[in-house]
């Protein structure tokens, strides 16, 4: 027994040991005093010494002394077999025109057994069987990460990994610390090192992480015996990759797109490269390929002229003998947004409502604001000739007959149109909204009923009914109170959490001026109620055709900003509310009632599922909606899908069977009765989309495998053109030489679990008892 390996991994804590020791020492002292009264000093000392020794041993064992026992045992060493299942292993330059992966699987498992009558013949033995005879084999497949495989799973393994990271898989296996493999009886623990003794790596050397090969920490890896698949000599491929393009583009603003063209196995080619937009060629250019291999940057410029989701692609024709076709095309999804949100505000008079609204709108650099404020009425006398005033004549014809369509939002802020122009111009505003414009109206002494809008074309737009009489009143405490619709609506939902949202609205300071109106009929949503008891409408929203209308029935909303500042908060909630109002009015896709959720998810039996959110005007799930989904595949084929509502998720689902990996363009339109709820367009990615990192460079990279094996003390073997039996022997020989066949077993042994220790603990009191009897003590 090696006493130098004694250690204390755990026992009774010191605050138990020290008092126990003191208590026993005191007991011993008293005991000796009693013994001295009845025995000679020598005998008393002998008995005290025996008891003291027993106490000392008890305290010692309580402290948990443990011995480490190391022993070498001849167990089968652990061998990690890693099989590359990434997409590049699907390239058909393996033996007999098969894929690299098929060759690797066959190498491990042997040829798949031919269909034979029962009992006739037997499955051939592959390398894996032989490895199982000598090693504790752990079989794993890897792409971006490693997962354990059974033999059956290996046979069915498909090269569909979207990324390759062999080093991560090796690291996670080889750096695994020792773990308790079993716990022995009577406190003895058995530790076995779980780190593999060796690694057999079957790969083409593909790595999509951009890591350096061999890595700096390769010295800490177990020996890696690598087998390289693919054929570097005969490899021929043209690939488009490394896209540099913005994810978001702006309407009518040119964007620059850059892709890299890599060519292997060809030289002296003149390659046409095209930029296409949903199948239609937009630009072309011809590239001269010099050298082999060659890489060249290609640049396109493109100006999107429509807002929405756009799928561009760069493609080049497949050449004769090319091994991978799918990487001749790379897709570039673009989200095209408006360059600016142009807002026209017309204010009946200078006001704090306008001042604070303008400041909030001006915070957003994407907003282009054009304002007209009526600084005087016909009754006001400026006292100087017009030439000494800065007043601009109101360009009513130009604004309402020509320019209206150029604004995303038109704002009437405490503005009474009847003082300045006829209903003819208001009819133009109504048309503008029906065709998709947005109308935002604030209250005031010259708005709603007080502004003479009752029975005007404007009233037909509004989400409220107004009275012909003046409706502008003072309110003692008109606090915003959310309605049920308001709690969900993107205009008034200031926080995704309903409780926080309600709390935020409760913190808005009360307003002191309101226009009292009645709530109107169906299709119009009341978002917040003001006035004492929350009886008056404060914010109302409505969709009319493609247009959106928002009514704010007060010109006192500046108090929401300034009141919050007074309470030593910022005016963040006010600016957020204004921003959300602007976004909803401008038809921002994030506030759309119809949304296609990103990326189709794989379902059962090879189907994929596209999920669609369809909401009613009050932003409840519109379960009764008719949802039309059309899907255009990689080749331009369009199919119409049925969408079903799922009550558990509140979403619609449309199932489709993809014709291949890549991007699909989905278009959805939803109707509820006669009401158009909205539409959405989105590019859905199936299996990661074309031009993914895995397909950037699928050439066999044996140099990486060679470097790794050399640095870890392993061996590299090439599979291409090699006789399988010879290769198998090479692998077995390499493993034989590199992977040790013995493992170290480490045991922790608690001292009290050793039998003779127990014997001593019994012996001491027995001796003491015997001596006491001999010396006449009871």
């Amino acid at each position, binding site marked *: 027994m090696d006493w130098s390996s004694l250690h204390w991994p755990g026992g009774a804590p010191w605050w138990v040991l020290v008092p126990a020791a003191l208590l026993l020492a005191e007991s011993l002292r008293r005991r000796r005093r009693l013994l001295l009264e009845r025995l000679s000093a020598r005998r008393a000392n002998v008995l005290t010494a025996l008891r003291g020794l027993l106490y000392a041993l008890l305290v010692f064992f309580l402290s948990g002394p443990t011995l480490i026992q190391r022993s070498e045992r001849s167990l089968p060493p652990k061998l990690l077999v890693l099989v590359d299942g990434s997409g590049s292993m699907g390239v058909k330059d393996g033996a007999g025109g098969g894929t690299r992966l098929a060759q690797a699987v066959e190498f491990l498992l042997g040829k798949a057994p031919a269909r034979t009558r029962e009992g006739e013949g037997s499955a051939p033995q592959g390398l894996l069987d032989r490895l199982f005879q000598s090693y504790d084999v752990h079989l794993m497949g890897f792409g971006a990460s490693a997962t354990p495989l059974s033999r059956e799973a290996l046979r069915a393994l498909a090269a569909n990994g979207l990324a390759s990271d062999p080093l991560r898989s090796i690291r996670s296996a080889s750096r695994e610390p020792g773990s308790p493999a079993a716990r022995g009886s009577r406190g003895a623990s058995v530790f076995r090192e779980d780190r593999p003794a060796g690694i057999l790596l079957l790969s083409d050397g593909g790595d999509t992480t951009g890591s350096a090969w061999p890595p700096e920490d390769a010295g800490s890896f177990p020996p890696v015996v690598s087998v390289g698949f693919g054929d570097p000599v005969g490899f021929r491929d043209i690939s488009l990759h490394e896209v540099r393009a913005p994810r978001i583009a702006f309407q009518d603003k040119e964007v620059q797109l850059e892709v890299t063209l890599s060519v292997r196995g060809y030289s002296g080619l003149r390659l046409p490269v095209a930029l296409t937009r949903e199948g239609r060629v937009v630009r072309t250019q011809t590239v001269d390929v010099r050298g082999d291999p060659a890489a060249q940057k290609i640049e396109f410029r493109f100006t999107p002229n429509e807002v929405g989701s756009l799928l561009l692609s760069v493609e080049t024709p497949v050449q004769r003998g090319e091994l991978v076709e799918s990487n001749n095309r790379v897709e570039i999804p673009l989200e095209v947004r408006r360059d600016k949100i142009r807002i026209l505000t017309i*204010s*009946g*008079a*200078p*006001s*704090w409502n*306008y*001042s*604070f609204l*303008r*400041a909030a709108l*001006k915070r957003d650099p994407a907003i282009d*604001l*054009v*304002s007209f*404020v*009526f*600084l*005087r*009425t016909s009754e*006001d*006398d*400026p*006292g*100087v000739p017009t*030439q*000494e*005033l*800065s*007043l*601009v004549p109101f360009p009513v014809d130009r604004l309402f007959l020509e320019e209206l369509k150029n604004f995303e939002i038109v704002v009437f802020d405490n503005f009474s149109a009847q003082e300045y122009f006829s209903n003819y111009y208001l009819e133009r505003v109504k048309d503008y909204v029906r065709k998709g414009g947005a109308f935002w109206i604030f209250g005031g*002494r010259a708005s709603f009923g007080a502004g003479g809008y009752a029975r005007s074309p404007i009233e037909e737009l509004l989400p409220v009914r107004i009275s012909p009489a003046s409706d*502008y*009143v*003072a309110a*003692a405490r008109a606090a915003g109170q959310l309605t049920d619709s308001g709690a969900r609506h993107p205009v008034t939902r200031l926080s995704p959490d309903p409780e926080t949202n309600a709390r935020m609205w409760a913190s808005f300071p009360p307003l*002191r*001026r309101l226009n009292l109106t009645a709530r109107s009929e169906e299709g119009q949503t009341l978002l917040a109620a003001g006035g004492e008891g929350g009886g008056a409408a404060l914010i109302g929203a409505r969709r009319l055709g493609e247009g959106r209308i928002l009514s704010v029935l007060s010109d*006192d909303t*500046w108090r929401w*900003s*300034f*009141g919050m*500042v*007074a*309470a*030593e908060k*910022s*005016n963040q909630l006010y600016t957020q509310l204004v921003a959300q109002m602007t976004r909803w009015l401008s038809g921002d896709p994030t506030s759309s009632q119809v949304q296609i959720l990103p990326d189709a998810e794989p379902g059962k039996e090879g189907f994929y599922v596209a999920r669609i959110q369809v909401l009613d005007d009050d932003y409840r799930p519109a379960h009764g909606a008719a949802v039309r989904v059309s899907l255009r595949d990689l080749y331009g084929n369009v199919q119409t899908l049925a969408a079903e509502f799922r009550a558990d998720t509140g979403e619609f689902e449309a199932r489709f069977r993809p014709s291949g990996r890549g991007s699909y363009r989905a278009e959805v339109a939803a109707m509820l009765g006669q009401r158009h709820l909205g539409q959405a367009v989105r590019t859905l990615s199936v299996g990661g989309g074309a031009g993914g990192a895995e397909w950037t460079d699928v050439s066999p990279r044996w140099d990486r495998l060679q470097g790794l094996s050399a640095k870890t003390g392993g061996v590299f073997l090439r599979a291409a053109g090699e006789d399988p039996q010879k290769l198998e022997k090479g692998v077995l020989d390499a493993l034989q030489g590199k992977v040790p066949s013995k493992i170290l077993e480490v045991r922790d042994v608690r001292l009290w679990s050793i039998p003779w220790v127990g014997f001593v603990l019994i012996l001491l009191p027995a001796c003491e008892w015997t001596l006491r009897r001999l010396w006449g003590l009871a």
Partner: protein
Amino acid sequence: MKRFPEPALGRRAFLRWTAGLAAGSVIGAPWRSWAQRAAPDEPAGALPPELAPGHIRYAGGRWQEYPTALSSMLDEVRKRTSIEPASEAQTVDLSSDQIFEHPFLYLSGRYEFEMPSAPEIERLRRHLTYGGFLLVDDGLGSNEDGFGRVVRSLIERLFPRQPLEPLSREHPVFRSYYLIRSVGGRQAVSQEIEGVQMGIFTPVVFCRNDLGGAWAVRPDGGWVEECTPGGEPQRRSAFQLGVNIALYAMTGNYKQDLIHHPFIQRRLNQS
């Protein structure tokens, strides 16, 4: 004293004056004091006025040199523009959150006063940072002494990184309503107006020509002070500047929008 005819003879002023006389004959008090009792804090159920300046009261010095100055200016605003102002300003203290009821603040005086406390300065800073406006009216006009010295020190503490600087003649204060060429006031100390610029807005405007002195009226309708050396044209400029400043505070720099700018420039060139 030569009268600037507009303040006393406008339609609304005339009606108020007539009503004031009638009321005065009944209760035996001057019309102005009637108006002061009737208008100030809006009675329950009355609509709060759009423009109700807060006149800052401070310790030391004299915070209200001309009690009628602001009401006279508000009369002018009512008469000349579409704004519905209060009939007079409300007195506010920087120690109270009441200043947030009044986005437009007015600070005036001639003499040195006690520097507001740190919490008061912080409150004023928040007011001005989040959309409020302060018109500083120096009745003495000296940078080194009196009111002007303390105000400059106050503004330094308010905005250490945004100095008080002369506003260019392109600034909306000079063209938000009237196309102003000279800076009026009771005195003509400077033809410059200074301001603190924060982003696209100027929340502090500082005039050294004693605007309040030019605006103030006596109970009999006459002017409290003569305007020297320019006389009534100088007073007219003071009123025009007051109107412009009120409009600027409530509309910001919208006159600099692309659609307005060329028109204004053309008109300036013509005249």
